[in-house]
């Protein structure tokens, strides 16, 4: 397995499952005029699996989710949601999937209850079943006491929870969450992560796009990394860290990183010099020695253990900074 040949599923568990994957993408390509948003993307998600979908802004995450949800049609390739093609049978696919888009989409003049009720009714629930389902969704999202409140009067985090709840009313087997924690408070983030874990435990497959790598680590799911429209890495967190997660000593200087010959591979990026070593805590003193006179310009030294962050850096060639990603987000 190489960077250019990422596998579609997370590992042997899915391969031996024998059942229909919750999501199967094969060779999906999408172009906007001259821009290729997705190029030959393959991805499998098994029932009950959480997949953290990562990538810089513009990597194609939202396009991928929109294609799965049937909002966009791929120019090439195939999509199957539990075996159903969203292009030829959009209604069948939508019955099986729930989408909470990246942009907050709620009805501000209506109450939380009416927002949830609307999507429950569209899903075919009637009478007491609607009320029961609203209670079931409101409780884990911490919305029970807010059901009678107008959505316009809620905080951003509370509105985000309503937005997510609307995607869950029909108990989808595949849930697409596009940056569900963008701009939310800590409490909302924790509630959403807990809900995702509980739904996955109940058999729902979850495709979770996020800017926050620690969330993916906390969910302990598998990872899919998109870079410039291509799937560049796919596997469980442990597999990817083992394959791509370099450890390093990272040095930050007051000016440009000096050009120093080291006995280990070193890459300068602006003010940062990253020295890839197997045991960074043991190598740090020798790295400092090697700096010679440049040590005076050193402002920070960081021991980088193998992590999703280092995986991301290796497979995309760029650092992943959640704050920068949010700032540059359209």
């Amino acid at each position, binding site marked *: 397995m190489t960077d250019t040949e990422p596998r579609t599923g997370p590992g042997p568990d899915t391969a031996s499952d024998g059942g229909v994957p919750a999501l199967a993408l094969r060779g999906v390509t999408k172009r906007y005029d001259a821009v290729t948003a997705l190029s030959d993307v393959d991805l499998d998600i098994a029932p009950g699996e959480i997949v953290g979908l990562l990538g810089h802004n513009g990597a194609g995450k939202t396009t991928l989710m929109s294609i799965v949800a049937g909002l966009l049609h791929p120019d090439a390739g195939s999509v199957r949601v539990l075996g159903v093609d969203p292009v030829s049978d959009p209604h069948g696919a939508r019955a099986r999937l729930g989408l909470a888009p990246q942009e907050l989409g709620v009805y501000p003049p*209506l109450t939380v209850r009416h927002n949830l009720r609307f999507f429950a009714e569209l899903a075919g629930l009637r009478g007491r079943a609607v009320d029961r389902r609203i209670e079931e969704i409101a409780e884990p999202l911490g919305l029970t006491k807010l059901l009678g409140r107008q959505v316009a009067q809620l905080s951003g985090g509370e509105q985000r929870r309503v937005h997510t709840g609307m995607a869950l009313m029909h108990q989808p087997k595949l849930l697409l969450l596009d940056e569900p924690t963008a701009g939310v408070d800590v409490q909302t983030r924790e509630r959403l992560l807990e809900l995702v874990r509980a739904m996955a435990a109940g058999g729902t497959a979850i495709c979770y796009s996020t800017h926050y790598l620690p969330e993916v680590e906390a969910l302990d799911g598998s990872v899919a990394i998109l870079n410039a429209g291509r799937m560049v890495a796919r596997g469980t967190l442990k597999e990817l860290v083992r394959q791509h997660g370099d450890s390093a000593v990272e040095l930050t200087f007051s000016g440009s990183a000096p050009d120093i010959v080291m006995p280990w591979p070193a890459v300068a990026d602006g003010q940062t010099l990253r020295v890839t070593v197997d045991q960074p805590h043991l190598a740090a003193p020798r790295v400092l020695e090697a700096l010679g006179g440049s040590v005076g310009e050193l402002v920070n030294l960081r021991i980088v253990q193998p992590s999703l962050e280092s995986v991301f850096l290796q497979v995309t060639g760029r650092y992943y900074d959640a704050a920068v990603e949010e700032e540059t987000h359209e």
Partner: protein
Amino acid sequence: MNEGALGRIASLVRHDLRLQLRDPAPLIVRTLMPLLLMGFMQPLFRTALRADRVEGATGAEQAVPGMAVMFTFFLVNLVGFGVFREHGWRTWDRLRASLARPGEIVAGRVVVPLGMAMLQLTVVFVLGGLLYDLRMSGSWPALVAVGAALALCVVLFGMALVSLCRTISQLAVFANLAALLFAGLGGALTPLSSLPSWASPLAPVVPSYWAMRGFNSVVLDGGGLAAVALPVVVLLGFSAAFATLTMVFFRFEHRKVSWS
């Protein structure tokens, strides 16, 4: 149409109604304004109708249907806002990703404005008739037939305009312009017999002309269902044309720009 589809359309209608009831001010204003304007227009219309040798005309015979027709066309905004606000609230894609089919979403967006148009016409005719002494010599069913055909035509004109407009500003401008132009050309602002010579040949190309012709048949000429058959059929023809325009140009994936 299966039970599921009907249930989803009913959900969309209930939802639209909830949203309308959250902000009833536009409907109230659109209903009260024609009643107010009738007071200003009545003396003018009385003179015009008496000059046309309409015996014992109070002016309400022209003022009530005229204002009713003009203000019904302002409802086009209501139809448009129903779609554009979904884009403004970013709920349009959620609807598209829901179990509601495209045809069901359109049907759900048409029913409430249609009901509002009928309600507005009813209130304007009943209250306007009482306040300004409207003496109607024709049949009520004929009046209802013309009103229903007009309401359908207005709502489908609204959907056609939604299909063609990318921004809510465009929609508002074209809807208001059309309401005034149709009112002027169609004989809602002056009796049809008093239209300027250049306007008379153009009048039949606007739906308000046929609505006014139908209302005049009932109110002034004492006509029944047979007398309004032609205007009703023509209004339904306009409705079919607007529905065709909608089917040709409406694209669910098109992004609309709402107020923001």
